């Protein structure tokens, strides 16, 4: 048997003039954990689709298990044991765990009838195989994201998976859940099953993979074994540029320490407890913590989406009640949600409509109808200010890249002229170049006197961009860091409770 499970040689693919992949090769050995990294638009998803046989390559060859495929079809790919777990997992929320694990296999076998004994047995065997325990009768909609991931992996195994491709599997998981997912991946490796892991998060890539293939602009930058890489080198290889990081400095004197927001004893049962903090004009206050630490719940409370049970909120020294988003907007608080696709944008609407949605009241003419001139002016102003790159502002928001989409959401809220701007993971899923651009926008806003709360998943992001940091855990603020420059990355990692980064070399 060949040592290589999958060999992809010199694959090229163009979509209507755009070269998505340009002579890319990748090879994966049996039992190898291989990471595919690259920024948005680097060709990762096209490559996966070609390996899955969903998209046909223009040029190049694919060899699986020593068999040569000129024209790989989806069915061939599945027969050769290649299973893709897409980001949405493709599960059936209304069906049981057991059925979700077994159903695809039965469809593939073209069964006409169902044997419930087989369904249960298959599910039980596969779960045992990867040493996981789940209630077989429970419906998918009632179980956690991490358990759903396990179900999706088991389902792939029922179809004789030899290579499991996971498309950003960790984006909805907490750190502990990610750890247990990684132990499953290691288990698969022991059984000789390979994993192709697609991720945005550098720390994860360094933690789990053995081999890393890096794509940039449709071209392969290189294939590296993990001990050749570290954080900075990986970023450099992905972006092709050295990104200089400077720390944000709070300019106290310019802003005369004007208190914008104060929260006293804010509590909401099951979400967060006794939260106290202050935010001054010109500050960037970081809130870090694991998923489920209460950070997003707290932010939503300040924006009127998750009413707190008790506690006081002061804006400009005056006590206020924030019971709805309307209240929050009136108090000039803005909130940029974590999930820009489902919560931030009207994805099918035009870019311009997305920008003006928050300020419709301000662009009315004397007849209380929308004034075209005012509309155009606002749209032009904000799209220029935030450098939104698009051939047309009337194109749908979904046509934009992640970074540009986030600029649209930023523009929309900046148009309301907020005093306090809460940003919930503003750079999630955004490529590194756009990321640093968004960071500099945030800093400029703070320098202009806005008070900013930056919730972040990434410790380095918080450290570079905040002057003060709150660490949340299990609904409480467990640590206040009044001078972000006084603490190192590793120290903060330890406080937040993440494992230390696997720093290599």
């Amino acid at each position, binding site marked *: 048997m060949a040592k290589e499970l999958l060999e992809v040689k010199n694959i090229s693919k163009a979509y209507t003039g755009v070269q998505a992949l340009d002579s890319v090769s990748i090879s994966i050995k049996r039992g190898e954990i291989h990471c595919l990294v690259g920024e948005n638009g680097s060709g990762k998803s096209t490559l996966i689709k070609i390996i899955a046989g969903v998209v046909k390559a223009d040029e190049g060859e694919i060899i699986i298990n020593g068999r040569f495929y000129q024209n790989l079809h989806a069915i061939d790919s599945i027969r050769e044991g290649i299973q893709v777990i*897409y980001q*949405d997992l*493709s*599960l*059936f*929320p*209304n*069906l049981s765990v057991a*059925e979700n694990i077994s*159903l*695809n296999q*039965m*469809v*593939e076998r073209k*069964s*006409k*009838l*169902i044997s419930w004994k087989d369904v249960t047995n298959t599910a039980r065997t596969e779960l045992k195989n990867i040493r996981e325990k789940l*209630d077989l*009768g429970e419906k998918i*909609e009632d179980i956690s994201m991490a358990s759903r991931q396990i179900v999706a992996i088991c389902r792939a195994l029922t179809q004789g998976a030899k290579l499991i491709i996971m498309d950003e599997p960790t984006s909805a998981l907490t750190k502990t859940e990610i750890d247990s997912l990684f132990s499953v991946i290691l288990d698969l490796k022991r059984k000789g099953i390979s994993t192709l892991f697609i991720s945005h998060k550098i720390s994860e890539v360094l933690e789990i993979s053995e081999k890393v293939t890096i794509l940039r602009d449709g071209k392969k930058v290189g294939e590296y074994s993990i001990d050749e890489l570290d954080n900075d080198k990986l970023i450099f290889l992905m972006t092709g540029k050295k990104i200089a990081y400077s720390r944000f400095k709070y300019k106290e004197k310019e802003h005369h320490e004007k208190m914008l927001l104060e929260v006293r004893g804010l509590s909401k049962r099951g979400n967060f407890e006794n939260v106290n903090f202050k935010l001054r004009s010109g500050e960037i206050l970081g809130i870090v913590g694991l998923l489920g630490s209460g950070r*997003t*719940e707290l932010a*939503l409370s300040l924006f009127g*989406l*998750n009413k707190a049970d008790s506690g006081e909120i002061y804006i400009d020294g005056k006590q206020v009640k924030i019971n709805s988003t309307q209240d929050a907007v009136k108090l000039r608080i803005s909130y940029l949600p974590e*999930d820009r696709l*489902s*919560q931030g944008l009207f994805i099918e609407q035009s870019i311009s409509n997305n920008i003006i949605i928050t300020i419709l009241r301000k662009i009315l003419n004397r007849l209380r109808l929308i004034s075209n001139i005012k509309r155009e002016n606002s749209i032009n102003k904000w799209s220029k200010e935030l450098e939104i790159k698009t051939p047309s502002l009337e194109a749908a928001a979904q046509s934009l890249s992640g970074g540009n989409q986030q600029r649209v959401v930023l523009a929309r809220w900046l148009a309301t002229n907020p005093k306090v701007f809460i940003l919930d993971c503003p750079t999630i899923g955004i490529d590194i170049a756009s990321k640093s651009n968004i960071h500099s926008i945030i800093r400029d806003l703070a320098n202009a006197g806005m008070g900013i709360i930056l919730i972040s998943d990434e410790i380095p992001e918080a450290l570079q961009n905040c002057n003060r940091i709150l660490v949340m855990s299990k609904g409480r603020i467990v640590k206040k860091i009044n001078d972000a420059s006084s603490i190192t990355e590793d120290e903060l990692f330890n406080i937040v409770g993440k494992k230390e980064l696997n720093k290599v070399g």
Partner: protein
Amino acid sequence: MNKKIKRIFSHSEIYLFFIIIIFSIILTSINPSFLTLENLFDLIKSSAGMGILAVGFLIVLLSGGIDVSFTAIAIAGQYISANVLMATGVDNIYLAFLISCSVGILLGAINGLLISVFKLPTLIVTLGTLSAFHGALLAFVGTKAINTAELPDCFKVFGHNNIFVLTRADGTSYGLSVYALILLGVVIMSWLILKYTMLGRGIYAIGGNRDSAVRAGFNIVGIQFFIYCYVGFLAGIMGVMHISLLRYSNPMYIVGTELGVIAAVVLGGARITGGTGSIIGTLLGVVMISILEKNLVLMGLSSYWHQLFVGLIIIIGVSITSYQNKRRGIRSLTFR
């Protein structure tokens, strides 16, 4: 064990079951003749047709679709079969069923074609075909009612057929109608399809997540086409049962009762957004709606109250589903 009990109580069917029991006790205390075998037999006979339509509607709902045209299909099957029998002079109930069900499958296939192949939204398509089918029936087949004297005998005989007959003390008799058997047959057939065939699991799968069903390799077009044909077939059966029960046919009948059927299915715990629901629940829903309809007068309310209740049940049912989704959303911090 504890978990098992918990799971039983997580099904809404069990609550509906208790509500029906309590409601029956109240009705019996008002009118002792409510809880008699005779009344039960009568209830089964008169609501069997509705039960069959409800099972059909449940299957559509499970697949994430909605069908409001089944009443037009039922009356078309009924009226066309009765007219053919009268015109040809053949007095055979099996032929009546054959014609009515064929008409049902044909009209269902039109729905199925529009929905599965052309991928049109189910509610709009069936709203359109509801009007189109009924309009075509009235325009091309006729508007004249068929009275009992004209009606072929086979319908009347069929409507009187009992599985067994019991005799009262005074010598008169009553029995369990053959309708019970037909309903049972439809229920068992539908249950087998849903529970033990890949086709049935495919129906659940489409209703749960259409994209996942496509990726899993289900034949979506085929499954959807089958569903609407099957609903048409069931409507055809109901059409003949209805005419035999009434011993009279008017092409204006049945159409307009869709909402009652939908209310029964929703009451039975089926989610209006698809993917979830059971046949047992649906049957309980039909029982509840039927008892309500027949006993409003007993409770001193006019029969217009029925319309009010049907509307309220649908709105409350949808609200509960939406509320459950919202709670699930809050848990995962999405606000829709």
